[in-house]
């Protein structure tokens, strides 16, 4: 079997593993649940009432959409004073913050499955590269 086919089989196996990790094994859901809790705590810390926090669930994504009646100053802050968006953006793992009533709310999001698959594929390529360094390089022996 050609090496390229073997490499493709390995890549497909990795992508299946990434999908299983994200979906059936529930790690994607758990990550978003955790981010949701942390984002809600941050919003609660601002003492603004009526602010909703919703992460994309279909597909799962690290993009959070905020809703509520906060004004621009409360949303984005001013100078060193952080707004609600800044507080939520500061949660490690949140990739993007949007407001439901703003025009960019409907923009396309990057699914978490895509991010997970891409990072797994990158790790696979690193492993493949290490393996090539270990076993793939042709060694010249004598008679140089």
């Amino acid at each position, binding site marked *: 079997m050609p090496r390229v086919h*073997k490499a493709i089989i*390995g890549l497909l196996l990795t992508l299946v593993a990434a999908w299983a990790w994200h979906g059936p094994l529930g790690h994607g859901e758990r*990550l978003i649940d955790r981010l949701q809790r942390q984002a809600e705590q941050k919003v609660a810390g601002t003492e603004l009432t009526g602010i909703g926090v919703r992460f994309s669930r279909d597909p799962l994504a690290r993009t959070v959409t905020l809703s509520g009646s906060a004004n621009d100053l409360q949303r984005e802050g001013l100078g060193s004073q952080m707004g609600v968006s800044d507080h939520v953006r500061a949660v490690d793992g949140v990739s993007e913050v949007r407001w439901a009533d703003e025009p960019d709310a409907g923009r396309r999001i990057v699914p978490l499955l895509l991010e997970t698959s891409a990072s797994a594929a990158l790790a696979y390529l690193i*492993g493949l*590269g290490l*393996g*090539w360094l*270990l076993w793939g390089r042709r*060694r010249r022996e004598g008679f140089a």
Partner: protein
Amino acid sequence: MWTVAQDNLILLVVAVLIGLAVALWAFRKSGSRADLTSDRRSDGPEGNGLQDEFAAAAQDVAGEILGVDAHPSVPGPSGPPDNLRLLKGVGPKMVAQLNEFGITRFDQLAGLTETEVALLDKRMGAFEGRIARDRLVEQSCYLQRDDKDGFEAKFGKLGG
């Protein structure tokens, strides 16, 4: 982002391991000596197992004691002569020496057992020990298969 990487750490380790396993599967086999050995031995008249090695050794010792040539001949050439100068370390004089023993083709060299190599090497005069030292059997295994890429990968650019 670091949170995501940490959350997926086990998956990433698994992916690296898959990559390593695939690399082992894809790369290691072609670089190993197993194929070379099996090719060589399948052509050789002896040395296919421990029993044959013992038999060959006994034959050699008996030959020495009785003063006869226990290995009377290398199998004759099966076709037109090859350019033995393609072998690394082999020049015209050594080719002439090999020809004296009836060796004109790569397949003859490739089929030599370790015992035969040792016997021939003793009789190579000025080139004593060169068959083993220059790994002519191994080189010939590649050239008899016309595997020039494999040869050059292992021994460097073809001579001649």
